């Protein structure tokens, strides 16, 4: 079986291996470790938020610092945890899945990684600056964000910097997928994870430069006298919101689509049944991506757009439920009449399907303009996006890690602990976020450090869930480290029902794979 691998498997040793790497597996590992670290940094900030909200009254932090925590929590989670984790998986798995020796542009690959630690050094250093870290929300709306102190230029430059990294990463993925597939791996034979990443890459390349443009205008408005977002000079603060969300909405699908891809790998493997509706999955993903460019103003229904605009964005938003529904139904049909087993990756995947869908439902409710006038900027929105982000994207990432960890390390993780981690996470995250729906409906605005006593009980429940969820993640780290250090040897095909080329290389995957294009058989191309 290991004929597809390199015989003399040599990895460079020492620090240089990691600093100067051009190896997709090493870079993938770096990405994943970085993402996990950032998940804890962002999570620690979330714990500050939840601690302050545990009871009414201000106990621990002043309001300005609270706002900084919210802002930086979001930026770290989105740009530091979920996106890099997705890119890390792409790095590790795409070459293995399509039979490529490496990423198409290995040096650039390394640069897209190394920008991240420096980018976050830039961003997190603002916590120690005069005037504090940015506190205007991750959406950076002017004029408020222009009141940021010394941190302001560093915020802007950090966004530029991280944007450069993502764009380079995306270009690399596109070049790899379109140029590096082994003979026989036609586009419609590619695993769905690869498909979702190609489409995500298009979203990245099309949307991140727009964000870069938007924050550049903030910079010139603050320091160079321009008036893009100032009515006194003919601009409009709302213009920023349009440009930001033209990036921002595709961005949320940048977080979601790779998750969809993971789920489309995991469910068939444990249902022991081919993925239902492969082609419609591809088309649905593409439709979601296209639609995501014309729905942005659903984040700004309350800014006072003309009626026609509000109607257009409402219809377009609701339409996204259709292709997303196709995906959910396909996963459902894949499980239908399969022969399922419930190892940890599958548990996370099933939880994803259900909890993401719940988040999608609240999304559709938010998309209905007249009612969003009530929901907007309340905890109902916070509940919505944590369902799609945490129990959505993050759960899918967890699923992926458990699914591929044996392939990366060569050892099986501790299944029992994995299951415990799953149940703790699944229960606590619902205790954490479900009550926030009620809080929002009952009238609690988001981004406030203190609240009326009528909101006290649900906040306390939510905080308890938050602490429980946070602590449970320590177990995850333990499981991963334990697995990396040793354990039961993993088979090459780790999971009985798993399909795809990655299971034809040894576990752990050798440093170099597919140095010459593999000859693909029919079974290798199944999905």
């Amino acid at each position, binding site marked *: 079986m290991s004929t597809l691998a390199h015989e003399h498997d040599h990895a460079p040793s020492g620090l240089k291996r990691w600093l100067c790497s051009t190896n997709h597996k090493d870079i993938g590992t770096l990405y994943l470790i970085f993402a996990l670290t950032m998940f804890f940094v962002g999570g620690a900030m979330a714990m500050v938020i939840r601690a302050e909200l545990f009871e009414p009254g201000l106990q621990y932090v002043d309001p300005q610092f609270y706002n900084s925590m919210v802002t930086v929590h979001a930026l770290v989670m989105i740009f530091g945890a979920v996106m890099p984790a997705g890119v890390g998986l792409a790095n590790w798995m795409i070459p293995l899945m399509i039979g490529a020796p490496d990423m198409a542009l290995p040096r650039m690959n390394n640069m897209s990684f190394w920008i991240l630690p420096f980018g976050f050094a830039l961003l997190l250093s603002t916590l120690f600056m005069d005037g504090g870290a940015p506190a205007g929300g991750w959406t950076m709306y002017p004029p408020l964000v222009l009141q940021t102190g010394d941190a302001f230029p560093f915020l802007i430059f950090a966004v530029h910097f991280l944007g450069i990294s993502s764009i380079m990463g995306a270009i690399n993925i596109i070049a790899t997928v379109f140029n590096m597939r082994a003979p026989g791996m036609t586009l419609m034979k590619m695993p769905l994870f690869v498909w979702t990443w190609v489409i995500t890459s298009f979203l990245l390349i099309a949307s991140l430069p727009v964000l870069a443009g938007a924050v550049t205008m903030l910079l010139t408005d603050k320091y160079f006298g321009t008036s893009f977002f*100032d009515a006194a000079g003919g601009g409009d603060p709302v213009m920023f919101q349009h440009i930001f969300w033209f990036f921002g909405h595709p961005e949320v699908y940048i977080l979601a689509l790779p998750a969809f891809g993971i789920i489309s790998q995991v469910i068939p493997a444990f249902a022991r049944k081919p993925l239902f509706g492969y082609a419609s999955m591809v088309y649905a993903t593409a439709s979601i991506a296209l639609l995501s460019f014309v729905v942005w103003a659903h984040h700004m229904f309350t800014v006072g757009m003309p009626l026609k605009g509000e109607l257009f964005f*409402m219809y377009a938003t609701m339409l996204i439920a259709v292709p997303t529904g196709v995906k959910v139904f396909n996963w459902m049909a894949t499980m239908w009449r399969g022969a399922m087993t419930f190892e940890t990756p599958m548990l996370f995947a099933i939880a994803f399907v259900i909890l993401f869908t719940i988040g999608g439902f609240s999304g559709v409710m938010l998309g209905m303009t007249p009612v969003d006038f009530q929901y907007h900027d309340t905890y109902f929105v916070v509940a919505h996006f944590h369902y799609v982000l945490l129990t959505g994207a993050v759960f899918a990432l967890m699923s992926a890690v458990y699914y591929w960890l044996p392939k990366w390390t060569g050892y099986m993780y501790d299944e029992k602990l994995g299951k415990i981690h799953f149940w703790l996470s699944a229960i606590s995250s619902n205790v954490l976020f479900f009550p926030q729906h009620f809080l929002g409906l009952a009238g609690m605005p988001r981004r406030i450090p203190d609240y009326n006593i009528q909101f006290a009980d649900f906040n306390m429940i939510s905080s308890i869930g938050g602490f429980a969820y946070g602590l449970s993640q320590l177990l995850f780290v333990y499981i991963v480290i334990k697995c990396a250090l040793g354990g039961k040897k993993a088979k090459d095909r780790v999971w009985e029902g798993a399909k795809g080329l990655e299971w034809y290389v040894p576990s752990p995957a050798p440093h170099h794979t597919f140095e010459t294009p593999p000859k693909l058989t029919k079974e290798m191309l199944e999905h």
Partner: protein
Amino acid sequence: MKLKALFNKLVSLFVLFPLAAQAEWGLNLRQGATEISQKVYDLHMFTLWIMVAIGIVVFGLIFWSIFYHRKSRGVKPAKFSHSTTVEIIWTAIPIIIIIALAVPATKLLIAMHDTSGSQVTLKATGHQWKWQYDYLDEGLTLFSNLDEKSQEIRQLKSGLNPQDHENYLLDVDQPIVLPINTKVRILTTSNDVNHAWWVPDLGWKRDAIPGFTNDNWAIIEKEGTYRGQCAELCGKDHGFMPIVVKAVPMDEYKIWVAEMKAAQDAKKNTANIVLTKEELMTQGEAVYKKVCLACHQANGQGVQGVFPALAGSAVAIDPANRLGHIHRIIYGKNLMPAFGEQLSDVEIAAVTTYERNAWGNNTGDEVQAKEVSEARNK
């Protein structure tokens, strides 16, 4: 302490869910006080139930598979991998559902956009961090800050218990009054950063954006007090700029307007009032607490890097800066708002005196209203 109460509530939540739901738990959107808010509520419930129904079907099928199509039951996996018919069906049904949702939503949205025929116009202007209200037809202007009791409780580590204040953070020093059964047009705008004016019982919120106005309307049907909050992040004290609307019959409204106008006119001309040092200090402290404390803090130390300290500040102690001090308050500078419109001569005099003598700024200065009135013209 509270944990135990929480536990009791949790039990009651599960046991008495339907009862607990409406009563004290505040689980759902409010039906509100206007026809529109009721319609919004209805549309919300309609959508919610549709989502629940879809959820039952989808999750039901998933759980069915989980129970019956598991390997441990010895099933052999089926081989099928697509079916054009079902794929068409499950594309078509969501489209139909969406149309069913979009039709009532469109109707409601069109109704909400129609501000024509209003009888009273109120302009709400967001400031960091208070609301200014202009009754445009009456020429009445007033400011509405967080009430003093909440203000004290909400200080970091104040040691005071929010539970002692039922309307904690939802009360103001100066509520606004609106007539019932009257179409009120409410314009929103801002003086500095974005805010949003939101009273849930009116059925909508609207952003207040500097340099632009938005308009909206409400016909309040029931008398009562309706509370809301600023709903767009506007900086440090975003959580502390509530809104309180008292809805009363038209004649009461008229009386209220007349009284407020009289008070406003009385405030206009205070240049000739002379107060003792003590009076200046007490009044000044009151004004400071109400208006300035949000930024410069109770101890006059400000917030490092954002709001300058007044304790020991050259502006507030140097005799040469006396006029500059007054001017700073009247006209503002950068992030420091202008207070010339909002505060009367005597109030500015008092707060200036206070600042020049509090927190160790022992200048002994005494500023009288006359000086402020003259400063306005310099």
